[in-house]
């Protein structure tokens, strides 16, 4: 990564990520890219992709990782805290208010029904996300096999995540290393 084009203050980071936090439902990454790259021009398209791939590579909520990397880049620990705090503050307040309101009105049939409808549709959205991500895997039989093992273990057998990751990740990474001559994926 090259040096930042222009400095961004801690309050700038806080306000920018405050806006990102409020801009999407069930995921805010597309809005984050638009604001960071197109509106405020904190990063170029390539720099953002670089930050994104780092954030997806590491554990943790991806958008939180993005806020940490960008906050750190412009303002060290203080910048990272400002960016991450701005990102989470309003969504956290709003979702807790919404939950309290829901508790008040949970006895109303229409409210419960609406909630059931939203959760049914939201499940479909997660399935769609997974299938879109699965498309590039089908080029390689071993990736399909690893994906299937993870699904059977977690969804059907309900194996603890820690065991599954400890057993499957080393195998999968070893295969990827062994077949590293193949096209990148």
């Amino acid at each position, binding site marked *: 990564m090259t040096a930042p084009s222009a400095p961004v203050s801690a309050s700038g980071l806080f306000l920018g990520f405050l806006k990102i936090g409020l801009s999407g439902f069930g*995921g805010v990454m597309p809005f984050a890219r638009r604001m960071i790259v197109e509106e405020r021009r904190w990063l170029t398209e390539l720099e953002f992709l670089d930050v994104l791939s*780092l954030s997806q590579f590491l554990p943790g909520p991806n958008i939180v990782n993005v806020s940490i990397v960008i906050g750190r880049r412009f303002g060290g620990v203080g910048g990272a805290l400002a960016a991450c705090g701005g990102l989470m503050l309003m969504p956290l307040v709003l979702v807790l208010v919404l939950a309290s309101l829901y508790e008040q009105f949970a006895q109303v049939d229409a409210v419960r029904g609406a909630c059931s409808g939203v959760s049914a549709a*939201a499940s479909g959205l997660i399935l769609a996300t*997974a299938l879109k991500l699965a498309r590039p895997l089908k080029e390689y039989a071993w990736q399909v096999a690893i994906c299937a093992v993870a699904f059977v273990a977690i969804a059907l057998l309900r194996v603890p995540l820690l065991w599954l990751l400890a057993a499957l990740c080393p195998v999968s990474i070893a295969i990827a290393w062994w077949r590293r001559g193949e096209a990148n994926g």
Partner: protein
Amino acid sequence: MIPPALLELTAQFLLLSMLSIGGANAIIPEIHRRVVDLEHWMTDADFAQLFALSQAAPGPNVLIVSLVGWKVAGVVGGVVAMVAMSGPSSILTYWVAHAWERFRDALWRIAIQRGLAPVTVGLILSSGYVLTRTADESSWVAYGLTGVTLAVSLTSRLHPLWLLGAAGVVGALGWI
């Protein structure tokens, strides 16, 4: 005195933070396994409702974590769960960001990423499966809504909020 459930919750999310390769969507089955099956902090129906609320509020999809915390230990639980879920991974990210430039193009780094990708997809697929089973239970209309949403989002660029809103209306009318 700190309630034992709050300490337990914090410990669980501190660990999950480091296990959440693929982000928040990948750990939903594990959260469900822990809070419904093991700890009995809530029922399947409660979990489905929290998931719906997390989708109906603006913000990142990791909000499900703070709602689970809220259900277990109130507003403090909601804030603590979010901080625990973000803390360890954020500290790791902060330190790795420093070295990222040096190993970004390293062969071992690319192998790790290619190795983790199919695991991540399997986990998110599991999330979709577990949520569908939990949310739709025995209602064929609910399964239908899940199916229609899946089909529309795979074949069009319609904003997901329209799909959530339409499904909410179907539910509010008492058709599920």
